């Protein structure tokens, strides 16, 4: 499925991810946590299907389990004592809190992976290039730092392998020497590359007043209506936040607000918000192609 959400105006993408990441970070209510986790997981799978699934299963699931298990071993607060380990109580509340914190952590990671895939560096430069030029350039460079280094180190080590100086030939000492040479090449390349980038950006007049940059983004009527829907959802969730619908006390005993009509509306708004990109994709797919 085409990611129509990523083709919307960058401002909408940015507002959406900022709101979603902040909400998943600060809402510890179980309903909100589960909604955010499911939304993040579904969208990350929709964005980069196989890799996201592998990432979730190989990295996120073990992290979630370890966090959920470790918390009650370190945190002994809570009224409901399940068992004693070395005379310190293991409590139900600590177990539940550990699980909640782990889900929160995982969903934030998932949302960050989504925003990384959607908020490409050209969008960031477009959004912040005029307000904070140097910071947005540095930010977009930093985001590309690790992937570029990885690509470049593969190129260098392949070239070294061709002339018989790879890291997997010879004695340990030779291998270490070759590895150090490769690292030195990488560092030299990185420094030179940084200077080249800076010079090139200066030559093009980046950050000068009155300079415009080329972009294909247009804020059209589609973006307008979607932005209005987004704002309505975010405001509803903020309303729920200020009326305390997401309040939960974990220690010493768990206290949750009873579910009312108002809270169901806030839950629905949060669900729509976390499924927003997928809904947009589905609606636009139907609109443009008639069917899925």
């Amino acid at each position, binding site marked *: 499925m085409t990611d129509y959400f990523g083709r919307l105006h960058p401002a909408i993408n940015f507002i959406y991810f900022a709101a979603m990441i902040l909400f998943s970070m600060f809402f510890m209510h179980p309903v909100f946590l589960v909604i955010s986790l499911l939304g993040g997981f579904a969208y990350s799978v929709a964005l980069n299907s196989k890799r996201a699934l592998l990432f979730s299963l190989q990295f996120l699931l073990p992290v979630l*389990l370890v966090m959920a*298990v470790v918390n009650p071993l370190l945190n*002994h607060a809570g009224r409901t004592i399940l*068992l004693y*380990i*070395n005379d310190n*109580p293991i409590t139900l509340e600590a177990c539940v809190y550990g699980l909640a914190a782990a889900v929160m952590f995982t969903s934030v990671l998932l949302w960050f992976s989504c925003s990384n895939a959607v908020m490409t560096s050209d969008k960031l430069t477009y959004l912040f290039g005029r307000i904070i030029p140097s910071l947005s350039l540095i930010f977009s460079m930093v985001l590309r730092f690790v992937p570029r280094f990885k690509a470049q180190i593969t190129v260098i080590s392949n070239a070294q392998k061709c002339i018989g100086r790879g890291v997997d030939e010879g004695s340990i000492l030779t291998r270490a020497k070759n590895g150090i040479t490769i690292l030195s090449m990488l560092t030299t390349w990185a420094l030179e590359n940084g200077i080249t980038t800076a010079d090139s950006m200066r030559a093009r007049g980046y950050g000068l007043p009155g300079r415009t940059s080329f972009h294909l983004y247009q804020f059209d009527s589609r973006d307008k209506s979607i932005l209005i829907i987004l704002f309505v959802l975010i405001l509803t969730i903020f309303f729920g936040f200020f009326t305390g619908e997401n309040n939960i006390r974990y220690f*010493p005993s768990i206290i949750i607000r009873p579910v009312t009509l108002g809270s169901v509306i806030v839950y629905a708004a949060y669900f729509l918000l976390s499924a927003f990109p997928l809904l947009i994709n589905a609606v636009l797919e139907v609109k443009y192609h008639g069917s899925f």
Partner: protein
Amino acid sequence: MKYKILSILCVLCLLTGCKVELPPQSAASSLPQTVSSSAVSSAQDESALSSIVSSQGMASSVISSSVSSKKTDTVTSKPTSSKPAASQSPAASKAAAPAEQSKERNCTLLISCSDILKNKDKFSADQLSIVPENGLIYEKSSIPFQDGDTVFDVLVRETKANHIQMEYVASPVYQTNYIKGIDNIYEKSFGSNSGWMFAVNGKQPPVGSSSYKLKSGDKIQWLYVCGQ
């Protein structure tokens, strides 16, 4: 993966010699807050102790069960009454000894956080919601104990038997256990200098709770002190 992690944890538990046990089920008959008839007298004791505490200027420092070596110095050096008191208490127990020579060893235990209620106006209703109404968490007289039992042993046994939550950490440097919280009232949650302190017969011993060996007739008090 899941089972791997769980099994690794189990092996770790076994290797470190952790003692795993279930909370007692039968103790439901004795309520957690058993307030005996001697509540009035003990309350007086307590106020006497807290006045001692404040007069010594101890309330400002966070020393509950783990008495640091530095603080031990101040306790032993500063108040001159401390040393005679230490020598006094065996004498007192000796005087009481003929009366209960044949009886088994008993002590009394009081766990109270009424110092929070005295400073009620400083804390929010949310904070105070975890504090029991009269500040008394647990009180029991004539608790039998065995020879060599410490203040800490009695606290662990009684809190466990009465389903009162209690958390401690071992501090190997001072060779004692530090009580972080009793009944979910934790150190530092009512002011930055707050925490649990213990006293035996109205005096604060210059050692930690797991180093203080009990004598028959000892009155143990665990008091939550708010500090300044």
